[in-house]
C-alpha cells in the first residue's frame, strides 16, 4: 500500500492522473458487480433437419381382372340430394360395365355431375319404378332422409333378394342412417384416423384385417380416405388396427369400416373417396 501511496501521491502529475483513473476503475467495477452478475451464454442453435422429412406415400398398383359377365340393372340413387358427383363413380361404373351390368341413375341429372332436387312424391314414384327392374341399389350420402314409405320399398326389394350398397362419407352431409338403420346398420359419427401408419395424412388409414367373405376375397390391404366406422347387427368384413382411433367414439375398438347386414345382401362402407381416382388405384382399393 505504501508503494501505491508513494506512486499515487509522489508527484502532482501522477496524482492528477492516477487518482481519477483509480476511482473511475473502482466505480466501474462496483457498478459492474451491482448490475451484472454473470454473462449470457446463448444456446447453440439447433439444426432443424427439414431435409430428413419424409412423407408416407403408398404405391399405386396395377389392377387387372377378368370378371364374370352377368346381366342386370344397378340403380344409383340420385333422388335424395345425394352428395356425390357422377365423375366420382367412374371406377365403380366401369367395373359394373365390365360385368355387363347396366347402371341406371335414379334422379334428374343437372349436367354438372349432380342431380336436381325432387319432391318426396317424385322420389317415391321414381324409387318404386326403378326398383322393379333393379337387381341392386346403390345409395351414396343422401342429404334427404328416406321416408317411411321409401324405406318400406327398399325393405321389400332387399327381402326379395335385391342387393343394397350403402356408401357413407364423413366429409359429406348425409342422412344415410335413415335407411341404414332399417337393416340394423348404423354409420357412426366422426372419422377414423391413424397417426402411425397412413397414406399421406392421418385421415387416410389402412385396413389390412379382413374377415373371410366373398366381398373381401383377394384383399390384403385397403386404404380409406376419411372413413367412418359402422356398427352392424350383422357380420363385419374389415376391422382396424390398434393405432386407429375415432375422433368421436371412444373406448370401442377395433372399428369396422366395412360391414354387412344380418341377411347378407346389404353392404355398407364408410367412405366414398377410396374408390375415386386416383385413390382407387392405391393398394387393393380396386380389388374391393
Amino acid at each position, binding site marked *: 500500500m505504501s508503494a501505491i501511496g508513494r506512486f499515487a501521491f509522489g508527484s502532482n502529475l501522477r*496524482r*492528477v492522473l492516477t*487518482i*481519477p*483513473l*483509480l*476511482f*473511475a*476503475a*473502482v*466505480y*466501474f467495477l462496483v*457498478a*459492474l458487480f*451491482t*448490475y*451484472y*452478475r*454473470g*454473462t*449470457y451464454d*446463448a*444456446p447453440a*442453435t*439447433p*439444426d*432443424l*433437419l*427439414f431435409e*430428413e*422429412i*419424409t*412423407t*408416407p*406415400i403408398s404405391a399405386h398398383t396395377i389392377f387387372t381382372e377378368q370378371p364374370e359377365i352377368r346381366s342386370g340393372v344397378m340403380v344409383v340413387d340420385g333422388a335424395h340430394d345425394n352428395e356425390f*358427383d357422377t*365423375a*366420382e363413380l367412374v371406377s365403380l361404373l366401369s367395373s359394373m360395365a365390365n360385368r355387363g351390368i347396366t347402371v341406371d341413375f335414379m334422379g334428374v341429372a343437372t349436367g354438372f*355431375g349432380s342431380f336436381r332436387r325432387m319432391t318426396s312424391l317424385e322420389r317415391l314414384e321414381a324409387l318404386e319404378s326403378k326398383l322393379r327392374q333393379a337387381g341392386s341399389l346403390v345409395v351414396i350420402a343422401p342429404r334427404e332422409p328416406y321416408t317411411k314409405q321409401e324405406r318400406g320399398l327398399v325393405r321389400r326389394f332387399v327381402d326379395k333378394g335385391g342387393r343394397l350398397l350403402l356408401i357413407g362419407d364423413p366429409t359429406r352431409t348425409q342422412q344415410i342412417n335413415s335407411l341404414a338403420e332399417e337393416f340394423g346398420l348404423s354409420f357412426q359419427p366422426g372419422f377414423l384416423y391413424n*397417426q*402411425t401408419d397412413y397414406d*399421406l*395424412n*392421418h385421415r*387416410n388409414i389402412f385396413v389390412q384385417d379382413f374377415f373371410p367373405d366373398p366381398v373381401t376375397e383377394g384383399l390384403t390391404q385397403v386404404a380409406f380416405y376419411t372413413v367412418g366406422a359402422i356398427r352392424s347387427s350383422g357380420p363385419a368384413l374389415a376391422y382396424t388396427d390398434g393405432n386407429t382411433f375415432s375422433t368421436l367414439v371412444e373406448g370401442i375398438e377395433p372399428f369396422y369400416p366395412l360391414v354387412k347386414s344380418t341377411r347378407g345382401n346389404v353392404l355398407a362402407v364408410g367412405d366414398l*373417396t377410396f374408390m*375415386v381416382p*386416383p*385413390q382407387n388405384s392405391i393398394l387393393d382399393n380396386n380389388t374391393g
Partner: protein
Amino acid sequence: MNKISALGRFIGTWYVSTVLLIAVGLAIGSTVFFYAYPGKPKIAVIDIPFTVIDDRSVFEIGAMLDYARDDSSIKGVVISLNSPGGGAAPSEELFFEMVRLREKKPVVVIMEDLVASGGFMMSMGANYAMAKPSSFVGGVGVILSPLPPVVPFEPSDREGVTGPFKLNGGSRRHFVTMTEQLRQAFASIVITERGDKLRTTKNEILEGNLYTGVEAMQVGLIDGLGGQTDAIRKAASLAGVANYELVDVNTEVSRVFNEKLERMNGPVRFEPNLSGEFSASDIFALLNGQSTGAPTEASTLLKGLITEDSDALLTLPPTGGIGADPAKALPDFPLSIAGPKAYYLYVGSSE
C-alpha cells in the same frame, strides 16, 4: 482577487484536491459505465395482444424484435404473447427471428390466454417459455386451404398451359403430401426445440390438441408457470443482470416510427399546392396508391417527400404495385388468383 486566490489556495491543498480528483474519477467511471460500456442493463418487454400472425403483424412484431436485438443496453427480452397463430410463412418468419434474437440475448415468452399453432411455433424460438395455469397452448399443426377438389375441374382450352398442374400447382394428393410435409416440419421444430424436456410423443403433439398451461407444463411443452413479473425475473436471471430497468418496446418502436413520420410529414404540411394538413394514414394511403379523398396529386406529395427526406422514405412500407390487388395488377388476366394458403392457426369450434 483575494477571494479567488484564497479559493485557489484552498483547492490546492492536498486533501481538497484529492477529494476533487476522486469526484472526477467517479464521474469518469459512471460516465463510462452508464453511457459507453456496458450501460445500465435493461430488460425489454414486448406486448403482443391477441394477434393473428400475418404479413402486417410480422412487420410490426419484427420491428420490435429488431429494436430489442439492436439496442445494446437491452440484455434480455420478455414477450407477452396472445395469438392463435396465423399464416404459415409469417409464423415461421417470427420463429426464425426469435432464434436470431435468442442468439444475442435471452428471450422469455409469457403466454397469455391463447398461444396456439403459429403463435406456439413463434414461442419455440425463445429460451424459456412460460404460461399461466389457465392459458391454452399448443395446437400444433397445419391447415392447407383450399385443397383441390376430389374430382378435378374440366380443362379449359382457352389458355395455353405448359404443364398438367401449371394452373393449380398439383393434384389433390400432391397438396395432401405438402400438408404432411409442413406438419412434419412443425413437429421437427417442436421436438428439436423442446429436446429432452418433452414428455410426450410426436404423435400426441401432432394431434393438434390445445393444452392448459398446467398440462403443457406436465408434457414439457413449456418450461414454467407464472406471470409477467416471473418472466421478467427469469429473463434477468438468464441475462445475468440485476437492478435492471424495464423498456416498453411497443412504446419505443412507436416513438421511433412517429419520429420518422414527422420527419416526412414536415415538408408535406407546408407544401404550397396542398390544402390542409395530412395525417399519417393519408400518407400511407397515397403511398399505396389509394385515394384519400384529398384533391391533390400523389406525385406532388411523393416528389416533396423524396426531395426532403429520401432516406426516411426508404423505411416506409412498400409502395405502388407491391402488395397490390392481383385483379388490379393483372387486369387482363382472365382467371382469378386464389390460394392455396397454409396456416398454422387455431380456429376453434364454431357454434
